């Protein structure tokens, strides 16, 4: 890492770790797994240097439950892993959602199913946008496409987690985790004012005891709790975030997120040089999914092609968003293959409305 005042040249994983430090993360719990190990390696030093706590847990299950415990105390806390490890964390994430605890979870996604590979993948889209564990719950999910965004969105993840008292996932992949880019707007570590924590545990000193739980056994109690959670998920809709690139006059909108969005952008740029009227829509928040802007674009009569580094998952959300006006084509780069812009040119050109007929 080279640092000169405000600029750093870092890997995406390091950007996430530095974002966590800047966001005032106080506790971080992890278990090693490729391709995210730079995060625990960096935080084991830099978080401790600023007075935070680092524990290398015995498993992802334990790490996620340590996160649960630390967030119950109102601390800014994080865990990170990659797909197989994230699967193990789902139990604790469900409990955090049920108990309304603001944990930040980073998933540097790799190929599956099973042990899969350490290659880039977007195969955890369903898992992260549908809750992932048991029960009716959702986690806010942010999908950075650059090291700068990885840094900024990690900071934002902590803010959102506490704003909604809900787990937030930062979803990247091996491309993001391993590529090096400069990041700007280096921020000082925030000083937390300790406000808004009147639900957190610190010992019931001169106040009523507090109980953080997800068990609701009495008649109707769980339904009431779930209603409250659903209202919260509705309120989160205002956090929708996305990037549009040359969509205004586009006849075809390519929809892609994360690294795939980045690669698709290069392809769109190349096609624009050939005067193809194509634009990019890149969801940045995967949950909540930016349905309204997609619906607006669809209402203008544009065509759609979803590009994913999986077997086709986000395309369901794209189709739901544009269903009143249009459908979306799908081109998949299966995990294990590395997408590159030139390989996308053909599929995009074929999907151009004029050619697609």
């Amino acid at each position, binding site marked *: 890492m080279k640092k000169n005042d405000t600029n750093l040249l870092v890997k995406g994983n390091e950007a996430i770790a530095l974002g966590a430090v800047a966001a005032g993360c106080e506790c971080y719990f992890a278990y090693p797994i490729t391709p995210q190990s730079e995060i625990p390696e960096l935080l084991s030093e830099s978080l401790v240097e600023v007075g935070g706590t680092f524990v290398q847990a015995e498993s992802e299950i334990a790490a996620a439950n*340590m996160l649960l*415990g*630390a967030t119950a105390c109102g601390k800014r*806390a994080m865990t990170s892993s990659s797909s197989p490890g994230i699967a193990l964390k789902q139990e604790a994430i469900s409990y955090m959602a049920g108990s309304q605890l603001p944990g930040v979870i980073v998933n540097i996604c790799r190929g599956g199913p099973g042990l899969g590979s350490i290659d880039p993948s977007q195969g955890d889209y369903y898992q992260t946008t549908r809750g992932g564990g048991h029960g009716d719950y959702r986690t806010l999910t942010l999908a950075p496409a650059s090291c700068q965004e990885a840094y900024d969105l990690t900071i934002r993840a902590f803010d959102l987690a506490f704003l909604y008292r809900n787990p937030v996932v930062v979803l990247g992949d091996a491309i993001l985790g391993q590529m090096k880019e400069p990041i700007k707007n280096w921020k000082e570590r925030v000083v937390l004012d300790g406000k808004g924590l009147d639900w957190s*545990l610190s010992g019931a000193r001169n106040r009523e*005891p507090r109980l953080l739980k997800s*068990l609701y056994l009495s008649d109707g109690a769980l339904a009431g709790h779930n209603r409250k959670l659903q209202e919260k998920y509705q309120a989160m809709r205002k956090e929708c975030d996305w990037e549009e690139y040359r969509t205004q006059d586009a006849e075809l909108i390519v929809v892609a997120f994360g690294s795939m969005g980045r690669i698709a952008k290069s392809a769109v740029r190349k096609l624009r040089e050939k005067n193809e009227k194509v634009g990019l829509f890149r969801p940045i928040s995967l949950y909540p999914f930016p349905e309204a802007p997609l619906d607006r674009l669809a209402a203008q009569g544009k065509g759609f092609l979803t590009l994913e580094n999986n077997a086709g998952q986000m395309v369901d959300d794209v189709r739901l968003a544009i269903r009143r006006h249009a459908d979306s084509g799908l081109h998949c780069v299966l995990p294990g293959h590395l997408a590159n812009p030139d390989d996308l040119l053909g599929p995009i050109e074929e999907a151009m409305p004029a050619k697609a007929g």
Partner: protein
Amino acid sequence: MTQAIQTEEKQVFRLPDVLADTATHFCPGCHHGIVHRLLADVLDQLGVVQDTICVASVGCSVFIYNYLLLDTVESPHGRAAAVATGVKRANPENVVFTYQGDGDLAAIGLSEIMYAANRGENMTVVFVNNTVYGMTGGQLAPTTMVGQKTTTSQQGRSFETDGAPLKMTEIIAGLPGVYFSARVAVNNVKNIKKAGKILKKGFANQVQHKGFSFVEFLAACPTNWRMTPVEANERVGGEMIDYFPLGIFKDNDNDGL
């Protein structure tokens, strides 16, 4: 003529404030209530009620928060020691304890308890061993005795297929990071008093930043043992103590208490 006798009133008994004034839902003869009462006494005596965070686990044990008025967080099944690690690392100034059954701690949560103990987390673990999964209806637990009939070992636990019941206090005592590990019972007044003293030590250690303390309670579950409360109590005093001996298995103070 009668003369008024003036005596100063001295309160010799009171319920600790931390104990909720509520009727119990536990089955008749269940030992959970006695353990709660001891916990209330100990926290009260140490003056740490307002500093304490309880980590409740999954089992009949979970309802501890209906009886002890403490800041409390619910843990997933078996993960209490990991949750408590997060709590204690976040708030080292709080007194943190887990309250776990034998299925919770010694089966699904074995990894979490071993590692929290081995790290020497400065916390207290209260382990209630009733040799069955209580809440789910009395199935075979890691502590079920060889020959003991349960709903999933209807011919009795077989050493050949199920292995031997785990002696957690001894296992925990064997870890270098552990400060204190002891087993107690609450089947008679003598043992209850002893248990209170040992539990107090388990918490005092934490207050004094000494490290990880583990206290196992042998407990009756008359309902799932298909016994009367009296029979269940006798089973604790007989068969259970024979296999799970009472005592302090590790004490880094080495002061004999």
